């Protein structure tokens, strides 16, 4: 990051004047934390004792045999507290908030995992907490909404625009400019104005810090490739970070939705529908029309359903240090199904995108090579969406009878 917050041509801090001072303070606090070895130690201790880190690296023997190529390893961020990599960032920012002396946190959430993690952190650290979530996502991720509210957070459904992640971000910014003195905005991904992309990456880099040790122990050498799904890009940045200067090939997998030529997807770096733009405080590749108005995006996975992408990934894409692919909704369901049946592991719909691409490539990679799939989160949160996609009869019957039970009582 240069001193204006750019990574090559991407990033920056395009923020309203009212936020200038707050960002100055955030920059100072972040730099201070980064230069203080005790801060990272405190962070590691917290993650070990509260969040189950280091998360395991699992050898997926059955999947490896099934595809007959590379040895497939799965990094188990699903076993992180709250069920996804999101807690890595949130607990780190929580420690920063304590240092800054603020008492209230707000966050946007798409899949609900970041909201969950933020509500959890707020409960633990004693902060007030408000979560903004697009109305469409509230419906897609109802169980997460339930838990956030139970942990004491206020969940505000956002009814503007496309009623998904980008609209939740706008609304969180509106809250922040109103309550800057008391409030920190816990940005959930490696996007937004500087220093968020770098700061979120820093906290998430704990993933690749761990896998680098783990893969050496389990496999004796670094992996040939690493696969991660890319929404905003935080789990990808975290799982790639410590391999950027190695020979490991890094593969980001975006949401192909109904297909990359369908106009119903969220593929920014793979495909040709995105163009450079500035919104939500930063410059990156956005899915937008020729007037610069953001387009509707589509993905079965709420967490990938976003118009922009980390400016750091745009830079790595431009410099060809990361390869980008897309997985369609259909392919995602198939990969998820196979992983459950062969390994007894339930990846989130978001994470299943990474599995799709890994499965396509595994047979072509030598048997003595390893690949790592970053399983960014667990899939049981998606039970409503997945059961719906399966059109599962017994689940439907259960919902219908439970609904009848509720409506007869009311």
């Amino acid at each position, binding site marked *: 990051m240069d001193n204006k917050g750019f990574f090559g041509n991407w990033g920056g801090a395009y923020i*309203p004047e*009212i936020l200038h001072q707050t960002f100055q303070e955030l920059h100072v606090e972040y730099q201070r934390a980064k230069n203080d070895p005790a801060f990272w130690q405190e962070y590691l201790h917290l993650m070990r004792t509260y969040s189950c880190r280091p998360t395991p690296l699992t050898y997926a023997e059955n999947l490896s045999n099934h595809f007959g190529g590379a040895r497939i390893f799965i990094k188990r961020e699903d076993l992180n507290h709250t069920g996804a990599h999101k807690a890595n960032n949130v607990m780190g920012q929580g420690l920063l908030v304590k240092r800054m002396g603020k008492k209230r946190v707000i966050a946007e959430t798409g899949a609900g995992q970041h909201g969950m993690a933020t509500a959890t952190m707020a409960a633990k650290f004693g902060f007030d907490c408000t979560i903004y979530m697009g109305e469409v996502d509230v419906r897609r991720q109802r169980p997460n909404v339930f838990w956030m509210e139970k942990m004491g957070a206020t969940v505000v459904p956002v009814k503007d625009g496309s009623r998904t992640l980008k609209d939740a971000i706008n609304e969180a910014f509106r809250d922040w400019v109103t309550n800057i003195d008391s409030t920190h905005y816990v940005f959930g991904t490696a996007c937004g104005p500087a220093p968020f992309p770098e700061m979120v990456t820093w906290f998430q880099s704990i993933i690749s810090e761990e896998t680098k040790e783990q893969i050496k122990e389990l496999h004796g050498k670094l992996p040939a490739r690493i696969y991660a799904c890319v929404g905003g890009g935080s789990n990808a940045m975290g799982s790639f970070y410590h391999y950027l200067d190695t020979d490991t090939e890094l593969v980001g997998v975006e949401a192909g939705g109904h297909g990359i030529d369908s106009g119903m997807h969220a593929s920014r770096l793979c495909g040709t529908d995105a163009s450079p733009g500035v*919104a939500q405080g930063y410059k990156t590749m956005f899915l937008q029309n020729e007037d610069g108005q953001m387009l509707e995006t589509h993905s079965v996975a709420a967490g990938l359903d976003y118009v922009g992408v980390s400016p750091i990934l745009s830079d790595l894409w431009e410099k060809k240090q990361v390869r980008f692919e897309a997985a369609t909704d259909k392919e995602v369901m198939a990969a998820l199904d196979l992983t459950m049946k062969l390994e007894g592991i339930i990846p989130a719909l978001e994470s299943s995108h990474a599995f799709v691409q890994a499965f396509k490539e595994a047979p072509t990679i030598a048997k003595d090579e390893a690949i790592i799939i970053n399983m960014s989160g667990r899939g049981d949160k998606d039970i409503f969406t997945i059961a719906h996609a399966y059109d599962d009869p017994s689940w439907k019957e259960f919902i219908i009878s439970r609904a009848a039970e509720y409506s007869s009582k009311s």
Partner: protein
Amino acid sequence: MQLEQILRQRKEKKDILLMTHIVLGYPSFEANREIVRQMVENGVDCIEMQIPFSEPMADGPVILKANQDSLANGTTVAQCIAFGAEMAATYDIPFLFMTYYNILFKHGEDRFFTEAKEANIKGLIIPDLPPEMGENFFRLAKENEIAPILIFAPTSTQERMATLDSMGQGFIYCVARRGVTGKKSSFGDDFNEYLARCRNATRMPIAVGFGIQDKEDIEALKGRADMAVIGSQTIRLVDEQGPEAVGPFIQGLR
């Protein structure tokens, strides 16, 4: 004549100037035409015309909805610039464009400035473009003699105000309070102290906006600010009573 000079000349004859705001294409360009006519005929001194953007992060619910509805009507940047040119050619007051940076960036900054100059637009307000991010923007503003209008906020330090003052032209837009557009502001001691800080930090005229809604608010600004900005309030009025309510409303403000 450039924006600052025009405003100073108008201020010679008035206690306080009045700037109003419209969202282009909302509820329609036809309604915009009627609203602007009523504003100008009732003594408005300057009008900021907002080119709608899908992600207006600094705007509150009223203007946000107007942006979305305008875009849903199919409003384009080209239509907005053409409308601006028509207004500037019709009325003898300065017209400004307000929008978010992506609109210029995507249109091409050079092209946007050239077209805005041809349209005789006097200034631009881009709330998400701080001076640090706008090297090219400020160069083009100078070349095209279009005032880049910068914003002071209650959170701005003296040092920051000095930086903004050195980069801005035309006038300084002082945001009355924290938050987004459209909510009522209260003008207590803190506010007066803030306005005094703004006044000390610049030799340009100062405009005060965010939450200015009625005659009482404007009275309170007389002698402290050079221009009052009415934003969301006229949009609310048009929503509730139609464009013809704008004239009497403006007339009742001073």
